[in-house]
């Protein structure tokens, strides 16, 4: 292989490919594509050093629209393909594009193993709570009782809480963002990219054809403040334009009113490195219609530094070469015991 790395970026590198984008007009994917392109442009990476790997689904067309290396693979298997690629090419910047069906249903087994191994990849999980490409069946993140083309009497399945699943699999970077908040998404994606290990960002993405408005309560200007909680490292957990906060008492979160009785100082201060608090944050997954429901958190919930899988694999190869010397094929073929016929 010969790699040419001496191209000087002339002003700004354009990461968009020459392919026509074919998502439905109004799809939340457009916004995510734009933010990813922007983050890549700002990162100073060379196009040839970036690889996008996807599974199957609307979101998985993503690699075609970037002028990087791209592999549009098969349903659910992107985490395994990423694991193999990173094992042999740890220097590349690898991004994985997946959806709620791809990652949590057909690829559910692979995603948890990717997370526990901590393969260094940025996983963008586009969650639209519906199967779009197959035209509107419920997904593992759809709420129970939802009426779709495959569930005319309502879904009977309890749904996944994706980030609780990620936490359970010992994910080392856990975050949530949304398609309608480009600035927030850019910040979270840049953080995800900087993290060494599996960075999983769940992105609430509106499917305006089959599940329009699924996240409206979090994105609509009127309802957003009361129902969303944007967490920032070192800052108190405040929402509803600063009128409410969250504190922890007796190991449990409580909503408090900021005013004469409580000040922001009484709130839980977000600490991305706090394993316990991260477990509580990912569990804030209430139905927003419920009385006294917790707001839905967004931002970076948890960051943990743990050696990546590929680092450990490569270290074993390096050590084996040090201890045994570079492989000698003739010695290998000969083996330990031989005899000679004269």
């Amino acid at each position, binding site marked *: 292989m010969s790699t040419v790395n001496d191209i000087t970026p002339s002003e700004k590198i354009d990461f968009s490919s020459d392919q026509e984008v074919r998502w439905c007009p109004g799809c939340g994917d457009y916004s995510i594509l734009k933010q990813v392109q922007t983050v890549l442009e700002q990162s100073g990476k060379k196009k040839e050093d970036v690889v996008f790997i996807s599974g199957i689904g609307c979101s998985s067309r993503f690699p*075609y629209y970037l002028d990087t290396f791209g592999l549009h693979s098969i349903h659910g298997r992107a985490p395994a*393909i990423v694991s*193999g*690629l990173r094992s042999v*090419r740890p220097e590349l910047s690898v991004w994985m594009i997946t959806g709620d069906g791809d990652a949590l249903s057909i690829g559910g*087994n692979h995603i948890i193993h990717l997370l526990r191994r901590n393969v260094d990849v940025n996983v963008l999980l586009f969650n639209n709570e519906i199967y779009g490409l197959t035209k509107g069946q419920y997904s593992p993140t759809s709420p129970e009782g939802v009426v779709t083309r495959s569930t005319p009497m309502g879904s009977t399945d309890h749904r996944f809480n994706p980030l609780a699943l990620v936490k359970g699999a010992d994910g080392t970077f856990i975050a949530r963002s949304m398609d309608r908040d480009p600035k927030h998404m850019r910040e979270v994606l840049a953080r995800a990219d900087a993290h060494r290990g599996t960075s999983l960002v769940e992105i609430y993405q509106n499917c305006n054809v089959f599940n329009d408005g699924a996240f409206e309560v979090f994105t609509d200007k009127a309802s957003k403040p009361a129902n969303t909680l944007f967490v920032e490292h070192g800052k108190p957990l405040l929402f509803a334009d600063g009128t409410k906060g969250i504190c922890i008492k007796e190991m449990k979160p409580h909503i408090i009113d900021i005013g004469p009785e409580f000040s922001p100082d009484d709130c839980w201060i977000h600490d991305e490195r706090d394993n316990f608090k991260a477990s509580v944050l990912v569990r804030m997954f209430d139905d927003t219609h419920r009385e006294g429901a917790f707001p839905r958190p967004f931002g970076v919930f948890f960051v943990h530094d743990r050696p990546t899988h590929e680092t450990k694999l490569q270290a074993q*190869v390096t050590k084996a070469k040090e201890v045994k010397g570079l492989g000698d094929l003739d010695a290998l073929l*000969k083996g330990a015991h031989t005899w*000679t016929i004269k």
Partner: protein
Amino acid sequence: MMQVLFSFKAERTFAMRSRMETPTRNKPVEARQNVVILFAGDSGDGIQLTGSQFTDTNALFGNDVSTFPNYPAEIRAPQGTLAGVSGYQLHFGSVEIFTPGDQCDVLVVMNAAALKANLSKLKPGGTIIANTDGFDKKNLRLAGYIDEADPLTDGSLVNFLLHSVDITKLTRTALEDTTLGMKEKDRCKNMFVLGFINWMYSRENALTEAFLDRKFGKKPEVLEANRRALVAGYNYGETSETFTMRFEVKAAPMPKGTYRSITGNQGTALGLIAGAQKAKLDLFYGSYPITPASEILHELSKHKNFGVITFQAEDEIAAISSAIGASYGGAIGITASSGPGIALKTEAMGLAFMLEIPLVIVNVQRGGPSTGLPTRTEQADLWQAVLGRNGEAPIPVIAASTPIDCFDMAFEAVQLAIEHMTPVILLTDGYIANGSEPWRFPSSKDLPEIKPPHIQARKNGDPFLPYLRDERGVRPWALPGQAGLQHRIGGIEKQDKTGNISYDPENHEKMVRLRAEKVARIADRYKPIRLDSGPTEGELLVVGWGSTYGAIRTAALQLQAEGMTVAHVHLRHLFPFNKGLGPLLKKYKKVLVPEMNSGQLRQMLRAEFLVDAQGLNKIQGMPFTSEEIKTAIIDLLKS
């Protein structure tokens, strides 16, 4: 029928002698051309170790050898039952040996179940060496002997030469002044047996003693006990009055050179590494443990200093998918499994075919369908390999015929995959994967270089066409990190040359044809087809593939010696076929295809060449005997 009674005198003599180096040899020695010996016992009796040590000793001596380990699927099946019987069959000789042998000359059994399970494999007049301790009432009952009738004493074995030896007691006596517990002492029984067999066939204990030193170096007491049991067994042969004769199998006229012993799975692993080395690529092996393919994972994981990365994936799908990811990154991605695991890999094979990237898939076949017979052998995955994908996705399929051939074919699989940018399926099976034979290993300089179709990075901004093919129909292998070669590929149908998504009807047909043509052209590089033995035209051609090689070769050579015009061709390339195969088939009046399936290759030959091929089909999880093949040939010649 002979019965060995243990005398006090013998016991003392051997207890004393067990501390001596080598006893004097004073019993007559009779020469044998070849011997088949089957060791059988409970799966915890150390049978596999006994068998493999005696194999190594004979190989080192210069015999040609062929082995067939046969063990239960359960790790520790109920003791004493037929289900728990583990066997190790060894054929060694002063002549060329092609199979582990149809029938045994000697049957060594540690208990009643082992006798019951294997007696049918013993030749009339063959020798039985039976551990009497394994024939108590409980063992007889577990083995299913009616009314606990003891075959060692009831005269039912009158047609065999029976030696009843209380191996357990003799072993315990030899170890009586050690501090080991009874259980540990009894574990040395297999070494007593090995020592005795070494004596019986005029072999030294030295190789096994060195092995014990390596294995138990850190446990001096266990080492000492095993060594003592080994020597005790040897001395027992020397001193026991019932064994009046020893045998000798002289060295075989093997081609000059340096040899080692190798199993099929080892051969596969080494062939894969050699291929990667000759291509100057790192090797990535994605795998999920499965019988009988796991030894490939174990072997490869020892050789990380060759740039080998082994990845024990979460499942079979991840195993192949990770290998695809590694190939995409520029390593040679490899995965292996057996039937059920291969079934799970099917969709990903289609992806690799569509991406047109190198990938090697090894199927160590076992009895199917479904979970089938995990520890038994079969050749029933041929159609799965050739046809088992959605859409038209022809993948080259090659097959190994012997443990040594596993090395050659694994190397070729890597070579074809890389040089033709395609997944390649290598078929082996449990019979040759676990079997071993002496290998006159090659020198690395005799192996050809493998040339990946890499492409230079570019700075000039010229568009890169990832599916622009060369004259063989092969596309370039552009790797992430190479400037100017960014491109997108996937499982969706792609436009010719650009690789962009295309649903154009005519483009699809063109692409299906281009991909098929690329694979078909691989036959251009095959060497001309060569008969394994026999006349170039005549009455009958036996067409074999895979592990039936030894049995067919033995049968064909014997019948040729008897003057029959029988020829044998053994196929290594099952898809695409060798171009010389069609014309060859037409040169014989009759074609016989022996297979351990219901006739999969036979149907492929009939479909491809319109030849009236007849089948010999055995689906018992056990290999053919050469007698079975001889009979089928004679019957077909007569018909």
